[in-house]
């Protein structure tokens, strides 16, 4: 095996480190220290290290104006944090995640509403686009047919009665790995169906509903597709938990009885109002990040 490159701690290298002289570029520890701390000017550096000394000096050259251009923005951040500690950077950074969770909650609401029949009307009309998509897919599978059947009133479907609304034909080859979380922003913006986000949606609904009676219906049809992606029906849970760790973790805490009395029977316990996800994430459209 000659896998050891010049960077590995091979014995010859270590010897060189301690016995300068055998090697034209040998360095002792003291010289290393003096080079690193800028104690050696290029003309004082040992043979072969003048350029290195000059290069290191260049890395600590006085700041150029463009390197100091962001001070106003930094001071603005200081003011913002000092005056309003609640609006923290962390809140901003987790905005995307809370949005994702909110969509997840909406899915729970849809699932619960579907399970309890009449409650669906209450949820109709103001569902965000992505949720409508999920609702459509759930309907397709649960109802065994198209939206517009008796399972839910057309209002829930974004007023598209009679459309076939077939679920996208299947998750792409990139089911598990990267794209899942990366697709969050586009999905939140109400945009397109990629295979990955489709899988993610199914997962979300699955995680939201699993271990409830509703889940049996869901599993029956639509989630066959998910099972195929996950590599088997028994692997769906683990697959989805890995794909959406946030949803999987936060599920327990989010199950609330809806304040209204529409729900009945199975699934009622799952539906929280979609607004509990925290609305602070929704309002800030342009990033308030400091200028670059």
């Amino acid at each position, binding site marked *: 095996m000659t896998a050891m490159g010049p*960077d590995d701690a091979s014995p010859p290298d270590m010897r060189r480190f301690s016995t300068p002289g055998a090697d034209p570029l040998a360095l002792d520890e003291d010289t290393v220290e003096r080079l*690193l701390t800028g104690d050696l000017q290029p003309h004082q550096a040992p043979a072969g290290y003048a350029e290195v000394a000059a290069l290191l000096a260049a890395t600590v050259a006085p700041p150029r104006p463009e390197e100091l251009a962001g001070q106003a923005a930094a001071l603005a951040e200081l003011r913002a944090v000092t005056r309003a500690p609640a609006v*923290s950077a962390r809140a901003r950074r987790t905005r995307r995640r809370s949005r994702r969770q909110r969509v997840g909650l909406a899915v729970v609401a849809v699932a619960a509403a579907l399970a309890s029949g009449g409650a669906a009307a209450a949820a109709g009309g103001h569902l965000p686009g992505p949720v409508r998509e999920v609702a459509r897919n759930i309907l397709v599978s649960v109802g065994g047919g198209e939206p517009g059947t008796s399972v839910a009133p057309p209002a829930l479907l974004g007023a598209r009665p009679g459309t076939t609304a077939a679920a996208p034909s299947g998750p792409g080859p990139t089911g598990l790995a990267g794209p899942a979380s990366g697709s969050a922003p586009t999905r939140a913006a109400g945009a397109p169906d990629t295979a990955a986000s489709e899988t993610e949606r199914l997962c979300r609904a699955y995680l939201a509903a699993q271990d409830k009676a509703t889940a049996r219906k869901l599993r029956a049809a639509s989630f066959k597709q998910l099972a195929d992606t996950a590599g088997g029906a028994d692997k769906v849970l683990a697959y989805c938990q890995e794909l959406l760790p946030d949803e999987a973790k936060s599920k327990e805490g989010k199950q609330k009885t809806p304040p209204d009395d529409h729900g009945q029977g199975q699934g009622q316990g799952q539906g929280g109002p979609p607004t509990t996800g925290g609305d602070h994430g929704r309002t800030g459209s342009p990033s308030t990040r400091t200028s670059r």
Partner: protein
Amino acid sequence: MIGPDFEAVLATAAAGDEQAFGRLWHDLQPRLLRYFMVASPAAAEDLASETWLGVIRGLHRFQGNEPAFRAWVFTIARHEVLDWRRRAARRATEDLPANGLSEQAAPDDPAADALEGLSTRAALAEVATLPPDQAEAIVLRVVAGLDVQRVAELMGKRPGTVRVLTHRGLRRLAERLGTAAPVRGAV
């Protein structure tokens, strides 16, 4: 370095004083940017902003002298880098190299530049061509101005390992620069 005033400057900055904070920022922002130019050049500005957010939010809790403060700031900076790389790794559409400057415009002839006064940017680009651990150890020692012990803590390595990393890095730089201009007159 801020020097003897540091303690007072820190205390005033922590209380929200903009002038005092400005001094801290002025001292460390260029160093942060240069560190990021080696560690995550594609996001250097953003990472610097995020780092300062962390600094601002933790400033009132920090206790220590100036070297400790620097080490603390660069600890935050390093976490931002690791965080950014994790996020970048999850973004399937983007494929940014972990050690990106090596793929950006490298100086045509760094050794020749050295004679005329290497630009900071070109020098950092040269450092960034080293193996990531070596590059980071060197930048934390030189640009952040941290001692071996603090760099070791920051990188989660033993001090001896950091010494070896910087030693190899310097040596490799010497080899590269020497090869780039084998014939050299008086320096």
